[in-house]
């Protein structure tokens, strides 16, 4: 929008956003919290019921001993059995058995016997009962199970439930609920962005653009109906003014033509000619030959479908290894663990391979057709995966999914970055990555929950439907764009490849920023962090939540950094400081080698990555001059860039694996952190040298 005064529009969209987001957030929170009592009411009795089942089982053993006339005070290894039961059932805190006199005969090794508990047991063991009793006292919370045989009371089992465990279960439920709130919040945000763009921002920008053009004298400009109701009448009024002026001018020009033929040299003809020349000098009534239709809201229009597309692929991501394990059968003597990893690697490999191929064909077919093909391949492969039961077919279909994914990924990234002005590229890139990670967070979160109910096949069908839906959205929101001015011949790509690789600035971005960034991502975040946290005894769901922090930073902080920081700092500075921060965040994991240290490290890494991820993409394109970039094509640059990035993806786990083979986790963290920071600094030095060279030349 080119108006000087954006305040009312910004204020309106801000108010709509704020109100809707606040309402959705608040109602989601209240709605979710209102479910907590339902969870609570169910969980507690079920835990108690389990304690009863355990008490029954242990009581049976005691009754068997009585049946076999073994004195209950001479049982062997009872404490060990108690310990084993406690180990298998985390919801229990302690198990004790006391005789009717109140003497504690057996107890697990962990129970802490104090005066209060001894008194309690003495009192309760003395009271015989026919059935179990649920007790909740200060010293004991659990179940008292009498051991009776043929009506004689032999003693009592005390099974204490762990209130801490219950709190942990409750906490897990709370985290699940918070995750659900977060997912629905992100989904709402994406839908809202699209809605506000279509219903408010875009129509206003179209009118503002028309006014801007007409004030410059471009009276050929006509507004296509730009929105709903109120905007339509403004559009019509502006068009009517332009129509009226154009027809008046044409009539005047025709009249002058006629008069100049009929009354050549007449007095007053010169005045009319002067006026008409003045009009022609200032105003245009015919559109120029190379005019392109103004289409605002390109990024929000692509963002929503891309979010759905990402979502469709990520829905099934969390259980691909499980499916792979289920379909496993020995193939050519390859190990099971190796074969289990193949479907994921195949997806990654074909994603990487699809990128240069897309780069070659993109400009010939056009982006819309490529996106359509990508969505179609994705939807078909995801749908067929739902019905496949053989491992080989599964791998083939995952590879096909990778091809479809790579095609759409590159097309959309190219559209985001190519269509933006140089100074806006990092902002566009931050939106692209925000959509990427929004889709990832929502997809993996919902997929995991859905799989439990709908099964793996059901989720794959849902994924295919989501991919189809993303295509429908692309179809209606995306514009045809073959990249005017970009060469479309195949030979061109070979020469472009040479130009791209030989460009030192581009190579230094790839070598010192992009590849280390990916190594950090796959090596540290997706490999070392789960390993380290698992070593600290963290649960799988906790590890998942920690990894989610990283994605959230990119979604929410990334666009903020790109919008505000890029005004004050250069891209090189942001990328170098981001790399150094990323390195330091990994080193924090080394210095504070605890769960909290790792969590802080991941959070800082998320912030660092939000700082330099969008900037690095922009830097890779910035390495080429505008005319050079137009000649090579942004898609070619991005495809090569993406290919190298994927190499970083592959290298990450390999490097960490190698490091771990001769060093411990802490040393690996230190080495990776230092390496990342050093790469960033090295890029900074190279950038300075290159800058000086350019200044001299």
């Amino acid at each position, binding site marked *: 929008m080119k*108006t000087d005064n954006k305040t009312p529009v910004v204020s*309106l969209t801000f108010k709509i956003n704020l109100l809707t987001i606040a309402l959705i957030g608040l109602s989601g929170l209240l709605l979710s919290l*209102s479910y907590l009592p339902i969870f609570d009411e169910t969980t507690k009795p079920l835990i108690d*019921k389990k304690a009863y089942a355990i008490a029954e089982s242990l009581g049976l053993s005691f009754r068997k001993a009585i049946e076999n006339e073994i004195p209950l005070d001479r049982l062997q290894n009872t404490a060990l059995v108690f310990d084993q039961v406690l180990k298998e059932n985390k919801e229990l805190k302690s198990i004790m058995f006391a005789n009717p006199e109140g003497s504690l005969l057996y107890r697990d090794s962990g129970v802490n016997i104090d005066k209060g508990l001894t008194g309690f047991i003495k009192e309760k063991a003395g009271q015989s009962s026919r059935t179990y009793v649920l007790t909740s006292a200060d010293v004991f919370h659990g179940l008292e199970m009498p051991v009776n045989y043929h009506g004689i009371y032999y003693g009592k089992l005390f099974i204490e439930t762990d209130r801490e465990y219950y709190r942990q279960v409750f906490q897990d439920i709370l985290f699940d609920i918070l995750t*659900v709130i977060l997912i629905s919040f992100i989904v709402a945000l994406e839908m809202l962005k699209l809605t506000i763009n279509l219903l408010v921002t875009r129509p206003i920008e179209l009118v503002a653009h028309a006014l801007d053009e007409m004030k410059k004298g471009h009276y050929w400009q006509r507004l296509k109906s730009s929105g709903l109701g109120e905007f339509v009448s*403004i559009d019509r009024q502006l068009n009517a003014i332009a129509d009226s002026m154009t027809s008046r001018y044409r009539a005047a020009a025709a009249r002058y033509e006629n008069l100049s033929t009929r009354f050549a040299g007449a007095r007053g003809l010169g005045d009319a000619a002067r*006026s008409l020349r003045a009009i022609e000098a200032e105003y245009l009534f015919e559109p120029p030959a190379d005019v392109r239709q103004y289409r605002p809201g390109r990024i929000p229009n692509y963002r929503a479908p891309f979010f759905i597309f990402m979502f469709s692929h990520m829905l099934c991501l969390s259980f691909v290894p499980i499916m792979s394990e289920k379909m496993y059968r020995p193939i050519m003597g390859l190990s099971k663990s190796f074969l289990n990893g193949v479907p994921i690697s195949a997806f990654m490999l074909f994603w990487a391979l699809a990128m240069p191929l897309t780069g070659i064909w993109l400009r010939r077919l056009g982006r819309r057709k490529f996106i359509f093909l990508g969505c179609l391949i994705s939807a078909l492969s995801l749908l067929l995966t739902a019905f496949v039961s053989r491992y080989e077919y599964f791998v083939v279909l995952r590879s096909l999914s990778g091809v479809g994914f790579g095609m759409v990924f590159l097309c959309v990234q190219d559209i985001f970055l190519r269509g933006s002005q140089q100074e806006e590229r990092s902002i566009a890139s931050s939106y692209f990555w925000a959509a990427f990670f929004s889709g990832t967070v929502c997809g993996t979160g919902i997929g995991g*929950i859905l799989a439990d109910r709908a099964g793996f096949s059901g989720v794959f069908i849902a994924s295919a439907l989501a991919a189809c839906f993303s295509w429908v959205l692309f179809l209606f929101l995306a514009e045809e764009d073959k990249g005017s001015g970009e060469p479309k011949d195949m030979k061109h790509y070979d020469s472009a490849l040479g130009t791209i690789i030989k460009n030192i600035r581009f190579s230094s971005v790839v070598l010192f920023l992009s590849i280390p960034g990916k190594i950090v991502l796959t090596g540290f975040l997706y490999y070392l962090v789960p390993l380290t946290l698992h070593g600290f005894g963290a649960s799988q769901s906790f590890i998942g939540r920690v990894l989610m922090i990283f994605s959230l930073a990119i979604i929410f902080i990334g666009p903020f950094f790109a919008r505000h920081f890029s005004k004050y700092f250069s891209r090189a500075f942001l990328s170098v400081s981001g790399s150094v921060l990323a390195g330091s965040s990994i080193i924090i994991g080394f210095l504070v080698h605890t769960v909290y240290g790792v969590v802080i490290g991941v959070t800082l890494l998320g912030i660092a990555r939000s700082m330099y991820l969008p900037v690095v993409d922009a830097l890779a394109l910035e390495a080429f001059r505008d005319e050079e970039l137009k000649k090579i094509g942004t898609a070619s640059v991005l495809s090569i860039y993406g290919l190298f990035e994927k190499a970083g993806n592959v290298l990450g786990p390999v490097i960490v694996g190698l490091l771990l083979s001769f060093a411990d986790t802490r040393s690996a963290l230190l080495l990776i952190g230092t390496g990342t920071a050093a790469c960033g600094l090295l890029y900074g030095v190279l950038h300075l040298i290159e800058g000086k060279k350019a200044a001299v030349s």
Partner: protein
Amino acid sequence: MISQCLLYVIWGRVDNVSSFWGRQVTVMRRPGSGKIYLLLVVIAILGCTLFLNASLNYLNYARNLKVLTNSRFSVIAQDLINSVEYGLNLGLDLREISTIQNLLAETRQQHNDISELFVIDEKDGLLFHSRADVKLMDAGLAAIIKEVDMNKRNTLVFSNMHYLIYPLTNQFNVRVGSLFLGYSSSLTEGMLAQAVEWFALYFIVAFAVCSLVIILVLGSIYSGFLGSLKKVRELLDMHARGAMPMDEAGAQTIFGADFSEFCSGSLRLAALLEEAERSMEKIENEN
């Protein structure tokens, strides 16, 4: 065609905007009230979000319920497994452990919520059942368990029954059979149905309250915005009649200085045209 009809229902009038694979693709515009559309769409987003929230919470609830129920039955099953494997470790064949039959029947009797317990051999043939009169496994179940990995703990849902399946292994850690513990889906269905009612109720209340707030607050915010659009329309009307809106009035619109500059530009054009027309009229009159 179908997509056009679909979008017509949602959006309204058809405008050609671009081509896709050689065909015209259309986007619809409806000259209706933007306020109603915006409110409807925002309420729809809110509804979708709250529905997603409620559904995911319900699914989480159902998963927790299943995990906790299964974990309770696991304790009972583990007792049975210990007893059976004790016999197997003594070198007995699974078929020879005759006490299994009684053990299954007794356990079934002690726990009313267990529907059935049975043991199959390594070839999936039924050996013992908690009901002594059952000698053959249900044909449908027999067909389904062929697809289940029996070498590890597993679960199966078949005709309103939840089955927990446990492998029975001998002293050499070789699977010699499996224990099946079945409980009726109705055991959890009641709780799930009740939860659905609560979740639906909370969802409806939250949706209704939030929709009301959106209609009131967002409606009034948008009305304010409509006021500024109305002002633009009035100024354009005035301008179309040949009047020049005051610079200040134009600058105060949402389009700011651009609006005033557009007006002055078009007035200058009108003046130049008028000048030319006047000169030509004069020539025509004189000749």
